[in-house]
């Protein structure tokens, strides 16, 4: 991994750490947007240009704004009343996460022999991606379209003001 990859990885992991450790919710949301942007740059570093730009467009441009709107609409940006921001069982959660990282890290480092192929940079054009989407992956594409429609309608219905509650 080159120097740039290290820097980008540091930015991404730093953003992720800030997102789970900070007290102010809006700062957490902005830190996670930084992590998303860092990940998009990592995708570009891995020569996946289409995925990188889609990551910025969808995550930074839509999911981050969704999170921020939700924080504002649920008044979570005000200071917490008592007990702090971490739940009382935070140590157990930390231990579980550390254990998961240990297991995955051990698996990666022990199977590294048979993995890396060091191929040349794949020249992926958008036209190839389009042809794959309409050819081999047309069924997942239609299913994802249906899923997005259902999710849109579902989110609107779930978050809509219910008329009976206005009594």
């Amino acid at each position, binding site marked *: 991994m080159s120097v740039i*990859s290290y820097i980008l*990885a540091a930015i*991404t*992991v730093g953003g992720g750490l800030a*997102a*789970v450790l900070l007290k102010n*919710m809006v700062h957490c*949301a902005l830190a996670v947007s930084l*992590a998303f942007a860092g*990940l998009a740059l*990592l*995708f570009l570093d*891995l020569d*996946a240009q289409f*995925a990188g730009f*889609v*990551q910025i467009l*969808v*995550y930074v441009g839509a*999911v981050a704004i*969704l*999170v921020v709107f*939700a*924080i504002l*609409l*649920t008044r*979570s940006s005000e200071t*917490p009343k008592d*007990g702090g*921001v*971490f*739940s009382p069982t935070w140590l*157990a*959660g*930390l231990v*579980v996460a*550390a254990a998961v990282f240990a297991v*995955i*890290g051990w698996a*990666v480092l022990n199977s*590294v022999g048979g*993995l*890396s*192929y060091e*191929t040349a940079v*794949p020249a*992926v054009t958008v036209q*190839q*991606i389009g042809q*794959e989407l309409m050819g081999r*992956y047309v069924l*997942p594409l239609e299913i*994802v379209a249906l899923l997005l429609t259902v*999710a*849109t309608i579902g*989110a*609107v219905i*779930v*978050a809509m003001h219910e008329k009976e*509650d206005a009594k």
Partner: protein
Amino acid sequence: MTPLAGYLLVAALLFSIGLAGALTRRNAILVLIGIELMLNAANLNLIAFWRYGPHPEALTGMMFAIFSIAVAAAEAAVGLGLVISIHRHAQTADLDEMNRMKG
């Protein structure tokens, strides 16, 4: 350490950070942020394997990552809609206070 192992370790680190966030924070929205971080870590894994795998010209890894991004966006929308709806009902988004089945 090969480049592939490096990227996989970064993805694993991001995944465990997201998991720690989802397990230790009180606010429901931060749990969702942790889940988004985990999904992103999985995407990084996919792209790293696509790049350093045997057949990058088959585009399988990138397609999987793109579909995963689309599905994650849909799931974030529904999840945040649920959090807003719960807040409207219980006046709080704090998970530690929602410890009863009675509405």
